[in-house]
């Protein structure tokens, strides 16, 4: 599969997470700005709050994305601050993952240079799935 003698075979890493939108609403109600500042970057908050009727579902999808990335990265990402896993909108409007700090280090150690991500939300739930090819060590 690798095409090179001695090269490590490529492996797939995947992660998925499901979040209840109502629970995000509850977090916002109970903890307000502290919840936002702890989990989300300024860019993520700006995007989510740009659509007042959809803030909770957008935040729910982004939180699900962060947890999905952590699952894909495995134990090496345990404890990585949520803000260090950022969901951005790419040029075409599709979501992209940008890693910082410990999360970036965990990805580099696993040989991951890029995640593919898909988000969805419908009514009560938001879901995120991520996938990445890696050439690193076992997690």
């Amino acid at each position: 599969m690798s095409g090179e003698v001695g090269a490590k075979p490529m492996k797939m890493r995947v992660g998925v997470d499901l979040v209840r939108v109502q629970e995000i609403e509850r977090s916002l109600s109970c903890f307000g700005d502290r919840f936002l500042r702890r989990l989300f970057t300024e860019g993520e908050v700006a995007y989510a709050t740009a659509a007042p009727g959809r803030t909770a579902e957008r935040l729910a999808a982004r939180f699900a994305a962060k947890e999905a990335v952590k699952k894909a990265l495995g134990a090496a990402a345990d404890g990585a601050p949520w803000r260090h896993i950022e969901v951005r909108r790419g040029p075409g409007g599709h979501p992209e993952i940008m890693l910082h700090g410990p999360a970036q280090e965990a990805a580099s150690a696993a040989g991951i240079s890029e995640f593919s991500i898909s988000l969805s939300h419908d009514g009560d739930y938001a879901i995120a799935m991520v996938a990445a090819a890696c050439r690193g060590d076992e997690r």
Partner: protein
Amino acid sequence: MKDKIRAILKEHGRLSKDVKDIGDKDDLLAAGLTSHANVNVMLALENEFEIEFPDSMLKRESFESIAAICASIEKVRDGQA
């Protein structure tokens, strides 16, 4: 301290079993604590005990049981975190 922690778990933990049936060293993940509920529990603990968990303590082991939460709070209070 443990009584306050149990009250917070009851309110925010959304556990699959009654908090009174969870031992101090029982695995909270096994008791149904999800990643999102863990965030709410953490924020509530910070409110209750007037602390802030540093990034270095955001690991699963810091909140894996009632006893672990106690130790984490004391560690932050003692300035060891």
